[in-house]
């Protein structure tokens, strides 16, 4: 079986090396001769490990021709993709863009034959000269990994936690009969070096949890290129990563693509990533390809109104929403107090008696009516601070005052009275509403808890708030599972405002939403803020969102304060290196602008003596 498989796999390679560049032909030859086990410089492909693919004379390597996918469900057929056609040439990055449910992932799955059994595909998908849609299970197995490979969204779940990284890297080499034993291990080391993981020999024996998120994604990429596929399908490869790591991963993908001449199908909802990576863009809406073309043309001069709207919804640095002006708190005003005042704030997590300090010595104030943006990457402690302001986590040292009184030191009744004045909006719209509560109960719950009003006045308040968040009044009898993510998040905001709080804590309120829904929710948020004039602690990893809303910004890194000040200064004229780095890593949805940004980022990193990926 394996001999047969090998033979089959080798034939196209030989053909390829004949038509390919002389360098790769030599490499392929040396691979047959049994190459020496010396550590030749990696990332050049001189070992023939991962060859540069030929250009195919302008013929596409992956081509979709009028592809339609229908899911046969119990109550009829769902037409998820309706006749999509596009091509990917070797060395080209085609971005497939769209929002939830647009069918972009389904489309890409057809290229690997990864659709579930109840899907029926019409049209043809050609991978090189093979027709994927006509292959049986055995044939599909042979192309998967070998000719087309995938990079997944969530590196932690894409890697098996109980196998070493080395085992997982050598798996596909073994499966496709490319290398076994020590030979496979050696290749695995080279692959890891190629994707920029230092000390690869050593780290081969480590498990996925011993790597950081960005390194894990590098390993996933290494696995994808291990069998030298002609096409890589990257399904939201950077969505789960921080911006600075995202920039690194994109750099890595770009350099690999240039080295190997691989075609990349990039599926993403992030317009910045598209501008950064793509050569061509295909925009999908409800299973249809509404617009496709060269990246500059689509992103700078969109033809379809949907593309226009999609690009317009992307939050950009420099854009602004109207929010109310905060009351200033100065020494002369004796009556005014800060809505939130933190001094030397330290927060610890208790791990089986062992204290783990995650927030170190933070000072900040939020004046009444002011929005303070807490910005940082994952693990920076921004959500921890929000939780502690909510009184969900104790303060280890320092002081945290809300309207002059310390929530963590108050007991029972007083703490409850203080909490009446704080509202909260969480990140995950699926988890932040109790699935067993109808919407009316969800919104009025704060009033029930604090014994405010009677049934009738509570319902009146609920109606008023539903009007404010622009949802029909009839939803009071609906359940959270009947609403979409954006609608649920608006219900969350309505609930937070039920008792007219003076302080609102918003913990990444829009990061789980589609970009146009996010824009609608942000607009609404700004409108409500100017109407109710609450002070707000706005936690976000998205600098552009914070720039739109916040009056002042606090940048955090590893639980420490990096920079603090008015939004204009911090985000437009940063003084700290870390803030500059964050700003330079955030991609913008304009290919030219992004190119200058990328060059600037490279210069910044070079000036700091680092490599860009």
């Amino acid at each position, binding site marked *: 079986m394996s001999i047969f498989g090998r033979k089959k796999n080798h034939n196209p390679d030989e053909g390829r090396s004949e038509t390919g560049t002389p360098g790769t032909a030599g490499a392929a030859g040396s691979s047959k001769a049994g190459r020496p086990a010396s550590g030749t410089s990696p990332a050049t492909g001189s070992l023939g490990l991962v060859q540069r693919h030929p250009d195919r004379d302008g013929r596409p390597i992956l081509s979709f021709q009028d592809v339609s996918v229908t899911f046969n*469900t119990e109550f009829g057929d769902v037409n998820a993709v309706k006749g999509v056609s596009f091509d990917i040439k070797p060395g080209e990055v085609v971005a497939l863009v769209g929002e939830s449910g647009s069918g972009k992932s389904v489309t890409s799955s057809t290229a690997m034959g990864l659709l579930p059994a109840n899907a029926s595909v019409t049209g043809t998908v050609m991978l090189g000269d093979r027709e994927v849609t006509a292959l049986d299970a055995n044939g599909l197995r042979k192309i998967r990994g070998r000719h087309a490979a995938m990079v997944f969204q969530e590196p932690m779940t894409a890697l098996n936690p109980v196998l070493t990284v080395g085992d997982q890297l050598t798996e596909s080499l073994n499966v496709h009969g490319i290398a076994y034993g020590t030979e496979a291990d050696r290749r695995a080391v080279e692959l890891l070096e190629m994707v920029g993981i230092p000390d690869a020999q050593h780290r081969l024996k480590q498990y996925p949890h011993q790597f950081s998120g960005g390194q894990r994604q590098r390993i996933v990429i290494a696995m994808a290129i291990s069998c030298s596929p002609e096409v890589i399908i990257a399904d939201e490869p950077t969505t789960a990563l921080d911006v600075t790591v995202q920039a690194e991963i994109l750099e890595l993908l770009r350099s690999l693509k240039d080295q190997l001449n691989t075609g990349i199908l990039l599926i993403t909802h992030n317009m910045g990533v598209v501008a950064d990576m793509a050569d061509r863009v295909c925009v999908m809406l409800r299973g249809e390809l509404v617009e496709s073309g060269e990246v500059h043309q689509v992103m700078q001069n969109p033809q379809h109104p949907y593309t226009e709207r999609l690009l317009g919804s992307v939050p950009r640095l420099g854009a602004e929403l109207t929010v109310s002006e905060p009351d200033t708190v100065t020494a002369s005003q004796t009556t005014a107090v800060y809505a939130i005042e933190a001094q030397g704030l330290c927060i610890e997590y208790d791990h089986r008696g062992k204290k783990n300090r995650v927030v170190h010595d933070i000072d900040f104030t939020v004046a009444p009516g002011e929005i303070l943006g807490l910005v940082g990457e994952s693990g920076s402690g921004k959500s921890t601070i929000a939780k502690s302001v909510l009184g*969900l986590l104790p303060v280890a040292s320092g002081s945290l005052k809300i309207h002059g009184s310390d929530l963590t030191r108050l007991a029972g009744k007083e703490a409850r009275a203080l*909490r009446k004045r704080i509202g909260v909006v969480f990140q995950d719209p699926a988890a932040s509403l*109790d699935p*067993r509560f109808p919407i009316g109960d969800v919104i009025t719950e*704060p009033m029930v808890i604090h014994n405010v009003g009677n049934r009738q006045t509570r319902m009146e308040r609920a109606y008023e708030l539903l009007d404010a968040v622009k949802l029909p009044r009839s939803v009071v009898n609906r359940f*959270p599972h009947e609403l979409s993510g954006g609608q649920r998040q608006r219900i969350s905001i309505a609930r937070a405002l039920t008792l007219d709080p003076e302080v609102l804590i918003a913990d990444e309120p829009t990061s789980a939403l589609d970009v*146009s829904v996010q824009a609608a929710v942000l607009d609404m948020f700004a409108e409500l803020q100017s109407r109710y004039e609450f002070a707000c602690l706005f936690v976000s990893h998205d600098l552009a969102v914070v720039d739109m809303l916040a009056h002042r910004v606090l940048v955090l890194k590893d639980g420490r304060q990096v920079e603090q000040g008015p939004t204009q200064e911090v985000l437009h004229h940063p003084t700290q290196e870390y803030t500059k780095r964050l700003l330079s890593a955030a991609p913008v949805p304009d290919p030219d602008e992004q190119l200058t940004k990328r060059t600037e980022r490279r210069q910044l990193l070079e000036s700091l003596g680092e490599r860009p990926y």
Partner: protein
Amino acid sequence: MSNEDGTPRNKPEYTPEENVRNGTGPSQTAVDMANLAEVEDAKLRQQTGKSYSQGQLVRRRFRNHKAAMISAVFLALIFILAFTSIGYAGIPGWWDKDYAAAGAVVNGGNPTLSLVPQWLGGQGIQWGEHPFGQDSTGKDYFALTMRGTQQSLIIALVVGIVSTVIGSVVGSLAGYFRGWIDAVLMRATDLVIVIPLLVLAAVLGQMSSGLGAGILPLALVLGLVTWTSLARLVRGEVLSLREKEFVAAAVAMGAKPGRVILRHLLPNTVGVIVVNATFAIAAAILLETSLSFLGFGVQPPDSSLGLLISQYQNAFTTRPWLFWWPGMFILAIALSVNFIGDGLRDAFDPRQGSRGKKRGIFGFSGRDKALNKTTGSTAGPGGKDVPGQPINGSGLGGLLGGSGIGNP
């Protein structure tokens, strides 16, 4: 987890055909179809159909579970038969013989019940004088069996309530507060678990029978020793639920622990609780039977199914009906309770069940089937009524979204 069955994480924001299929007129034209947020809202405004709570969806799914529904009806019939035939607590029933009164043994105590009609060569369908026969002292075996069934059902009910209440209270307190409360409660649970259940129940049962007053003390005692597995399950469930954002939101609003546990946590664990309770009931019936069989449970002259079997085990070869009737009732009760538990589990967590011919892509078929059902029922026989349609549409969406094919 039961609480998630109705909330697909990646619920797609709209389904392609819906707008076309619904044939909605004017409200649709005003909506900019390129704006996802507006499309969603328009869809919500159109939804005029009745909305279904999680509980209603569960009931619907349960009603679609054939084995469970048949079992429920069967159990209800047994219940009615047992309590109306010989009466209970002084209230007379329609069966004229007393389970404690001895009499003359007629025809060697053979059962007079006949189910074979005369035209098939039998004696015709009839109860006769002693349908289940008589025991060696001439007591009516039908009355005895009914008495035993009554006892078993009372045990089932009391044990079900007692063990469920104790188990959920202990489990939710331990899971919510953690720390030393958790440690104390869970070590207490471990203590009960490590002592063999039968030994513990036998000792306590013996002590309780000294109190008199019939079967209730025994039932309470059985409830006091069978709550442990539920406590652990509920604790586990609460531990995962308490990390959810809606719990954090309630706490941040100032809700007291009692409210969080009673209003947010326990309702979301109700699936685990109800399912486990039914299985605990089946186990308790068998436990009582074993105890009575061993002589530690119900004492004569009172009767129970287990006691009947134990008393007449030697008669198995000569007078098999003395063994078969109580045995069959035990089997029938335990089986139907188990099937009901099965149905409840499938109803609360449609993803877990093994039946279902076509399960959609990854799962929400149970919910969608239920939704589909409601569509059918609201739409009436013609099936053309509009109100049900949007629900149907969102069901389709749920299916797609659940598959993970809809993008985040």
